[in-house]
């Protein structure tokens, strides 16, 4: 079980809890604003963009080639950007805060 926080643009901090599936699915299941996941989680739409805290980035890992390319569709991309459909929910995410990019 992992508890994580999404910092949203419209609803402030939203704390959610999950143990499996992708971070995008967890966000969508809890109605986190700004995480649309239009493609259903197959890295095809870039509508689940988050920023990982710099200290957590190594643990989360860098995006693969397809994900990095897809992130370029978003003007707000930074070195800490990830598409959260590509991040699996697991215990090691517990306590992390993710900033929703849009």
């Amino acid at each position, binding site marked *: 079980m992992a508890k994580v926080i999404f910092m949203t643009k419209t609803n402030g901090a939203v704390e959610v809890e999950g143990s499996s599936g992708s971070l995008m*699915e967890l966000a969508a299941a*809890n109605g986190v604003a700004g995480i649309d996941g*239009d493609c*259903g989680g197959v890295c095809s*739409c870039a509508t689940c963009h988050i920023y990982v805290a710099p200290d957590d980035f190594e643990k989360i890992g860098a995006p693969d080639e397809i994900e990095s390319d*897809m992130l370029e*569709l978003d003007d707000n991309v930074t070195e800490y950007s990830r598409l959260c459909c590509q991040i699996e929910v697991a215990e090691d995410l517990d306590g992390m805060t993710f900033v929703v990019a849009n």
Partner: protein
Amino acid sequence: MMQNIHSPTHSLDLNIVIIGASHAGVNLAFNLRQQGWLGSITLIDSDPELPYHRPPLSKKTLQASDTLSTPLKAEKAYTDNNLVLRLGQTVTAIDKQANVITLDDGSRLTFDKLVLATGCSAFIPPIPGLSDTLDEAGNPQYFAMRTFADAKAIKAALNNSTNKQVVIIGGGYIGLESASSFVALGADVTVIEKQDKILSRVTSSVMSDFLTQLHLDKGVALHTGKDVVEIQHQGNKHLVVCSDGTHYPADFILVGVGVRLNTQLASDALLTIEQGIKVNDVCQTSHPDIFAIGDCTTYFSKIYQRWIRLESVQNAVDQAKSVAQCLTNKAPLAPAVPWFWSDQYEYKLQIVGLSHGYDELIVREDSPTQFSVWYFNAEQLLCVEAVNNSKAYVLGMQAIKQNLQVNKQVLKDTTTALTKTSLLSE
């Protein structure tokens, strides 16, 4: 062009009824709330399932060990946003003079604004014997792949079948994605396509030939140029018979030969229908209080300068945004660029734009498993189809969206890496 008849300001506390709670309808409901809509919002759908993503049906839903839908939004999100969901209910009539709709249980709902997001249904062709394709208990063993119930039934049929023999009628995206999933599940798969090439209506022979070879390599028996004329039955076994006398045994049959638009309500309401429900730039129909979005609509594309109808998640999402902007008195959005994707085996196909009307095609092969097809009309880039190549897809998207010029020499030269700077210019 249609007249732009929408009134300049809409009051935000009116009642809105959305018929169809799939990608388009659900997105609209949430967008409206986000944009400050205060009035009631009711979503109605004949499907009893909590609204779900359809694209995973032929992929994840079919392949996963558990059979779960992928909900578009959590149930709680509807409550939190004060959205009324009426699932498992069908609208039977629209009275556009009285602004009232009637549901199949006889109840009536009034609306100030009505949105038709009715989509399409799978077309089941009148092939003799098809509707008699049943198992011994009398359950249908022929399926479409359109709803969560379809995917569940197909999975059950596969699990119950003795030889896992499946025949897919139709070599379109639904048929091919399903074939890929069936192969992953260890089934014996035959695909029968009427045209001489698969996907002939939507792509070039480059992509069609690539996907044909891919499916053959994966062990799919892919037959093109064959017309299915009859289904014969012997107990639990079925035989798909073609006009040239060839026949293929099946435990069950998947039909993926296209769709019928759900335009009956629009037609009863005397809205203008040409290919789909005709809508203007803000998705308003020929009646000022009735809008239409998603697969069931036709609109004039400013990018392609012609009327188009799209069956896609992108179109559903963009048209939903467009209506929300209009009803909340916000500025219209930039013209939408169509995009699509398909996942088959280990290949990710991403498409941006529409290739129709191209006069030049450039294939760039970055590696045997990574390439892209670029479609031009003179210097205008119309479409990019990218296989395992999101870079090409993203650059194509930027070029079409911002109307940038593509340097064809760079594109053809695989020793030069594709970047925005190397490839695109004003």
